[in-house]
């Protein structure tokens, strides 16, 4: 190989674009990086086609970072292709790591989603009731679209993943650290999440103000209250997911006077982040009577959205159970057992 620089690829699936942009958060450090690597594929920035990628020898890319969750057949194909071409595959950002916000759609059946988006949403005019189709014949011309799958998945529910960089989006400090780690020869053990394995409270500047006994009487919704700038959010009755969330973000949201919403996902010891924060918060509620419990609950009108905001795809809940026989995923889509 000699002086050849290591090849790196970036790709996006179902994502907001924030992850791609986060590379720019490296600021001038990006110049150093580009010195050391050779970016072979990055659809958001470079004009390089799929067939070029296909033409590369297998395993010729040192490292590919894929962001976004996976919903369409095209995203699956790209993930499989990039896996084949790369030595190291990294799930970059919350959506690839855990399914992310898009996976909240797993609460609804595919048909209902399409029905709403193409027919009943108030902003839609669709008199002919056209729904997307995989194939369409227009005077002998075949037009194809990727298939919209039944569920949203995280990257590792489709292909084998080596490492994860958590965050919505991952902070530059962790990205830089990951690059230097992976470009060196000291690879961490496979499956590692490249962030500290301790919950956010540990690095939260407000931890001192968190009392030993929270005794939460009611949960306040953010838009109903003016959070105090220095006091632990939970001590103010505002649901903060920090205690159940991996640290490493340097409490960015909290510094901006917003509670943690859990984007780094759980620590390695937790199977289901939502269930964990739920049981922790339930244990911290003061309620003694049914009415007290109802009052506390009324502050959390959307429990799935509050506790599983980023991780529904990877949680134990995963997806709304659908009773009809053909709607649960077919095997070859690589659904986790």
């Amino acid at each position, binding site marked *: 190989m000699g002086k050849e620089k290591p090849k790196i690829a970036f790709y996006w699936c179902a994502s907001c674009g924030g992850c791609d942009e986060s590379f720019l958060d490296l600021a001038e450090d990006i110049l150093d990086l580009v010195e050391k690597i050779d970016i072979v594929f990055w659809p958001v920035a470079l004009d390089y086609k799929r067939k070029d990628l296909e033409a590369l020898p297998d395993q010729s890319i040192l490292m590919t970072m894929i962001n976004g969750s996976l919903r369409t057949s095209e995203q699956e194909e790209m993930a499989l292709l990039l896996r084949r071409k790369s030595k190291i595959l990294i799930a970059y950002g919350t959506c690839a790591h855990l399914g992310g916000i898009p996976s909240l759609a797993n609460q609804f059946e595919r048909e209902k989603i399409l029905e709403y988006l193409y027919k009943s949403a108030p902003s839609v005019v669709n008199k002919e009731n056209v729904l997307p189709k995989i194939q369409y014949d227009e005077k002998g011309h075949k037009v194809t679209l990727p298939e919209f799958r039944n569920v949203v998945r995280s990257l590792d529910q489709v292909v084998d993943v080596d490492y994860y960089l958590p965050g919505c989006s991952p902070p530059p400090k962790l990205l830089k650290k990951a690059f230097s780690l992976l470009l060196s020869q000291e690879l961490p053990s496979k499956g590692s999440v490249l962030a500290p394995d*301790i919950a956010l409270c540990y690095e939260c500047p407000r931890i001192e103000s968190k009392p030993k006994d929270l005794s939460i009487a009611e949960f306040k919704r953010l838009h109903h209250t003016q959070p105090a700038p220095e006091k632990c959010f939970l001590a103010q009755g505002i649901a903060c997911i920090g205690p159940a969330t991996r640290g490493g973000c340097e409490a960015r949201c909290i510094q901006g006077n917003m509670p943690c919403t859990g984007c780094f996902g759980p620590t390695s010891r937790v199977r289901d982040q939502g269930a964990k924060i739920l049981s922790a918060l339930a244990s911290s509620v003061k309620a003694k009577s049914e009415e007290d419990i109802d009052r506390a609950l009324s502050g959390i009108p959307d429990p799935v959205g509050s506790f599983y905001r980023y991780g529904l795809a990877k949680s134990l809940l995963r997806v709304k159970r659908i009773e009809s026989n053909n709607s649960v995923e077919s095997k070859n889509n690589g659904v986790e057992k």
Partner: protein
Amino acid sequence: MDDLKEEIRIGVYVCHCGTNIAGIIDVKEVSRTAAGLPGVVISRDYKYMCSYPGQAIIQEDIKEYKLTRLIVAACSPLMHEETFRNAAAKGGLNPFSFQMVNIREHGAWVNDDKEAVTMKANDLIRAAVYRIVCHKPFQRTRVDIQPSVLVVGGGIAGIQAALTIANAGKKVFLVEREPTIGGHMAKFDKTFPTLDCAACILTPKMTSVKAHPNITLWAYSEVRKVEGFVGNYKVQVGRKPRYIHEDLCVGCLKCIDSCVYEKPQFPKEFDLGLSKRKPVYIPFPQAVPQIPVIDPETCNKIKFGKCKQLCMEACNERKAIDFDQKEKIEEIEVGAIIIATGFKIFDPKRLPCYGYGIYQNIYTSIEVERLLNASGPTGGKVVLQNGKKPETVGIIHCVGSRDVLNTNSWCSRVCCLYSLKLAHLLKEHTEAKIYNFYIDIRAPGKNMEEFYNRVSKEGIHFIRGRAASVTLDDSDENMSGVVIQAEDTLIGKTLKVPVDMVVLSVGMEPQPDAKEVGRMFSIPCAENSFFLEQHPKLAPVSTMTEGIFLAGCCQGPKDIPDTVAQAGAAASEALSLIDNGYKELEPYTAYIEEDECAGCKTCIPLCPYSAISLHEEKKKAIIQETLCRGCGVCVSACPSGSIKQKLFEDREIFCEINGVLERQ
């Protein structure tokens, strides 16, 4: 993973339990299926695994097949987990390399579909096989046991328990809420069925309590805080201010005589308000300790800050009186606790149909006990409000008992018998005509039926039927008499019986603060709020919390003989615990990996045994292992999964779940 290096060789044993299990579960099939599971090297079924030969098979197999794990599918682990752990240990295995599968209570006894329950047994065994692979060896640790006992409540139950333990040479702390010990019994005149004088049999015991070198008596005191665990309870007792120093007072009672109130003016609690006392008083002449109390609500000095304080003068150089006295907290450590907080008498105002508090001459049974008592408000004379002796008395049984709709569902057990006792004593004192209105006469127990026969021969009238109401007798020109209306169910007629005096045989209820007391000691109440025993037959004085025992009516209504017997039992349970000197702790405690804990403090207030605290420098939670009882609350609450529990690690539980679900 490190434990995978170890070779896993599992033995599975399926018990028939005679026909209890084998009668419905196909044990041969279950054993065959188990033999095919990963890691299983030997699988057998046997008639009684817990028998001596059953255990011997296990021990031989451990050697012969070099077993490293043992699974027995049999009854509930509550019955035989210990048996098989011992068998494992005798065979040379770590006792915690064993897992019990309950196919009797969870299988055979609750199913009648043979095929389905056999499948279920297979599933449960598969779960155990998958889980046991993760088991690690553990050692039990030992903790010392404090050789002392706290008794809460100084009624006859608490007194009896305290004396029994003290006589065995162990230290006892007896905490009583009222200014004197004695409880309800101290108020009675005579006791059924023998009619011996209550004071004559009780007061000697009360004085022995005070005099006993091994008993520390804290009357007028209450438990404020309980921490710790079996063998090592740390208890804070609040000694309420009597405004008289117990150690300086000699019990001369001169303060009472000299009080600025020459005449007693305030309702006396001990006589249920039927007599009066001064602001400084003793509840009754034989009170123990013989030390007066000053009631801050009625004392001029304390209430208004102004008084000549003649009591102080009378106390003179002894200087026992101290108006600035405050509650004093005593901290003690004890190995065991006996709860003997007794009962509360039903308040008949809840049943206005009986006219209590509305008409004259309507009394509760306990008030009549005081009226009959020579040291009571009337010196033992039973007279009506007008000073005359009653000529007719109606005794209404079951007031606040056996009445599912309006009051309490239970039978208070003693009311029939004390009603007979009161009928007898009232007849003796007044020669009145006496009517007992009863639903059934319940007189079980030694000499009780004989007592009933004796009283019924004394010319007492018995009317079978729950009294419906007590109303004013308008035919009585003084308007002081009342009429009891009841249906005599034996002749099917409604009767109206005019009487001068009514006695309401009120039932027993749990103490109003039973729930809070229960919470403080971590002992649950039954549905009716009396404290719940661990097992109604086999552990009648134990509670769900190890080292805490029950005695007397706090566990349910009972008479004095039963109370004393139960107090003896509670004392001997406590003694057998503390006399051992140490206790072995189960290893399934929770633990925290320091590096992993984020110091979020979620767990700290949750531990029911106060085992978790925050390390002030490291800012991380720490669990004191000897205090942890392995309830698992903190484990499930820890939001970052940093608290784990031995033998209940996530991995073990997930393996178990996978095992259950993996039916072919």
